[in-house]
């Protein structure tokens, strides 16, 4: 597979260092009476502005890989550089926003205050409220800023959580199956929204999912992972044109790519 | 935090910990033995003793901290045991150093000897308070409470009409209830049993009702698809679901039972019971007997709680 850059707004200059660089990365968890290899010999290089999906069955280490990049876990081997620095340094410099599978909003804070949280913690200078409002507008929830999280639907909560991750303008956005718990209609709608956000903000997105159509629809490249031990089976370039719309899902190329990923997943399963 | 952890991880660290514990406990024991019993002479220079005892306590605390490092069985149990030992010995030494009169605070040693010399009276008191009053009242209150809970669950009217009162009643202080019941039922132990039963009743009703209603909609629907009889549904879904709630309430009730028995005894007895003993001996400044009674009450309380917990462990499937 040759690397082509299908993203229209990204034109990487030759020699620009990758924003994520992973070499022979390994993660072993101790378990009673032995150890589990969660991730084995992972190699991956991600350029600024890409939209990368990590896809695979449960137990393939895709979430582990994301948590390693976020310095929420520490690798047991290999090398991992985020924006040219070790992961813990990148975290301390607040290089990424993280969106969890659950919205993880604080139930004692209003929608606006939830988005304000990272700005408060990081002591961001300037008009924080204006910044938070701008983020809410970006996800289309500016009318709900005074509501408490429980008054919002699951999809709306997840949009707040995305606004919160973008609030402090990190170059990277890590998303761990953010739409996994939502219904299909909501999910497809949020997929479109997310693509729009990605184009408008120019972030690099790393997105964990177990849905093949979602991965194909969103990504510039899909990293296919398989389980036991967790490893990278292959990387598929998604050369679908941008901007993508509901029509993209009808494109024959969409099905070809989905089939390609499915074959890779099966190969790893055998 | 980190230096202490690395310290204990080395064999030398373990040695240091053991030495600190030994010095703390041994030193305090020595101090307690050297100092005269309060009332039998005044120790010289209390301030110097204070400094010494505090230093020994600090050494002991350092040892406890060292012993708490790691995940071994010893690291989980030893710190608590040594803390008790250090606290008791430290109290003994301090009280002796300052020659605090026994009428004010008796030394732990004195309490122990009171426990021995007054054992027959105290055991009789414990039997009255724990077995006749707390335990019987607890059983009566539990049986009554469960019966009431069944009625409440069976009849929606009672749920709306009676349950709010049960919740309301559990915020009434027992002390206000006790004198009335003692006056109505009499000075003998049954009056205290009634007080205990009444205090136990309300949390049990509230807990059991909440438990019986906690059955999941899905499980109830499942039983419905099996065309199960109401009895079967009750036995196979509602009761197992209610047990954790009932035991939660029973644990609370076991503590309440002993407290209310003791408090009720403050309002009149026929001369038996730990609460009576405490009140009468406080009046006579026989504080060593008071503390001995408190020690027995504590042991009874812990035993009671352990009893309920053991029953829970037997009846509930272990989840892990």
């Amino acid at each position, binding site marked *: 597979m040759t690397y082509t850059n299908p993203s229209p707004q990204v034109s990487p200059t030759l020699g620009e260092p990758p924003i994520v660089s992973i070499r022979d990365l390994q993660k072993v968890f101790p378990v009673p009476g032995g150890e589990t290899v969660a991730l084995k010999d992972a190699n991956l290089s991600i350029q600024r502005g890409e939209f990368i999906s990590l896809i695979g069955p449960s137990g393939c280490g895709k979430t582990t890989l994301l948590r390693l990049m976020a310095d929420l876990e520490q690798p047991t081997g290999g090398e991992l550089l985020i924006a040219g620095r070790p992961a813990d340094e990148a975290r301390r410099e607040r290089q990424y926003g993280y969106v*969890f599978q659950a919205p993880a909003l604080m139930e004692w804070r209003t929608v606006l205050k939830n988005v304000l949280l990272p700005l408060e913690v990081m002591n961001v200078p300037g008009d924080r409220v204006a910044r938070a409002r701008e983020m809410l507008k970006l996800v289309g929830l500016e009318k709900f800023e005074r509501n408490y999280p429980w008054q919002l639907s699951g999809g709306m909560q997840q949009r707040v959580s995305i606004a919160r991750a973008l609030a402090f303008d990190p170059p990277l956005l890590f998303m761990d199956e953010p739409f996994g718990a939502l219904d299909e209609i909501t999910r497809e709608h949020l997929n479109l929204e997310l693509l729009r956000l990605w184009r408008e903000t120019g972030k690099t997105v790393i997105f964990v999912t177990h849905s093949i159509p979602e991965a194909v629809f969103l990504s510039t490249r899909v990293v296919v992972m398989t389980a036991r031990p967790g490893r990278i089976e292959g990387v598929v370039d998604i050369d679908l044109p941008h901007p993508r719309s509901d029509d993209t899902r009808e494109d024959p190329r969409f099905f070809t790519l989905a089939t390609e990923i499915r074959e890779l997943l099966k190969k790893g399963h055998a | 935090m980190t230096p202490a952890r690395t310290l204990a991880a080395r064999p030398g660290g373990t040695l240091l910990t053991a030495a600190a514990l030994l010095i703390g406990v041994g030193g305090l024991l020595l101090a307690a033995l050297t100092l005269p019993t309060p009332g039998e002479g005044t120790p010289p220079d209390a301030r110097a003793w204070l400094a010494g005892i505090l230093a020994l306590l600090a050494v002991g605390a350092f040892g406890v901290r060292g012993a708490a490092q790691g995940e071994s069985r010893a690291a989980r149990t030893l710190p608590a045991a040594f803390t008790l030992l250090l606290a008791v010995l430290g109290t003994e030494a301090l009280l002796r150093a300052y020659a605090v009169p026994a009428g004010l605070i008796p030394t732990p040693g004195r309490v122990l000897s009171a426990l021995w010399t007054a054992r027959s009276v105290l055991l009789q008191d414990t039997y009255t308070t724990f077995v006749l009053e707390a335990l019987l009242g607890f059983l009566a209150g539990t049986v009554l409470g469960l019966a009431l809970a069944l009625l409440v669950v069976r009849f929606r009217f009672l749920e709306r009409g009676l349950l709010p009162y049960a919740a309301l009643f559990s915020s009434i202080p027992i002390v206000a209830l006790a004198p009335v019941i003692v006056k109505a039922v009499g000075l003998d132990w049954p009056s205290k049993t009634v007080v205990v039963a009444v205090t136990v009743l309300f949390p049990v009703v509230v807990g059991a009702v909440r438990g019986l209603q906690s059955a999941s909609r899905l499980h109830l629907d499942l039983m419905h698809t099996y065309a199960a009889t109401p009895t079967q549904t009750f036995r196979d879904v509602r009761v197992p679901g209610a047990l954790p709630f009932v035991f939660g309430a029973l644990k609370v009730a076991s503590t309440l039972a002993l407290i209310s028995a003791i408090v009720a005894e403050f309002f009149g007895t026929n001369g038996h019971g730990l609460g009576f003993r405490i009140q009468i001996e406080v009046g006579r400044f026989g504080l060593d007997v008071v503390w001995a009674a408190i020690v027995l009450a504590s042991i009874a309380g812990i035993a009671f709680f352990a009893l309920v917990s053991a029953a829970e462990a037997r009846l509930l499937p272990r989840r892990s």
Partner: protein
Amino acid sequence: MTALRPSRVAGLGPMLIVALIAAALYWPLMLAANVGPAGRTLASGAELDCRTALACASQLRNPVVPAPAQLAQGFVRLSTPVTSPLALPYNVGVTAGETLLGLLLATVTGIGLALLLVASQAFERATLPWLVASQTVPVVAIAPMLAVLLGQYGVQGFLPKAIIAAYIAFFPVAVGMSRGLRSADPLHLDLMRTYHASSAQTYRLLRFPASLPHLFTALKVAVTSALVGSIVAEISTISFSGLGKMLAENSRASDTVALWVIMGYGAVLGVTLVALVNALERWVTPWSRR
């Protein structure tokens, strides 16, 4: 225990009917309880304005269960003049004050202890077993002795009762609060880590607000304990006011009617204090659904 609150208006109908049934049952129960002592009093030849035991049952001086009219008289007798230091309203106020001050002391101590427990594993291992055990210990038993002790050191009046109330109430607060501080959602902890938040920020923005529901559950238990504590303290120290002093006095004088009235006041005070904590909870945690 108090989580099952009566649902608003819809629930009042059945509650009223049950109250009426209880009131209707009260009269025959009262007669049944009093008829024996009434017969004995008659037989002893005491001067009474009634002939039969049944008629006298509602007019005994020290009834086992007082008649409604006696209760009403007792209520008026003990409640007036309202501002008098000998009347119940004033004494209820004194006890309420002691209890609330005690609760405040208990909350501060309990939260401090909880912070220590959560911050230091060694401290937790050394003391938590004893804290848990102390929950099962009838701490009230210590109150009379503590009262003597505090009196010896010159702590007198209002304060020793509050201290005893606090002593009884701070264990549930410490245990509940440390459980609460640990109850923070792991996802939220991860989130704070991705923000590179300081430990103080994590406590202020996450652990502390997350612990509030646990704290209030504990406070509802603690306020009842504190009330019991301050009443027991009043009984076992030399007190000149308070519900406990009135209970002790009338218990010694065998004034049953007074005891019933005091019990009523005590019940109302207990329920009011719990309601107060509930109101405080709603005010402090406006995000709560209820």
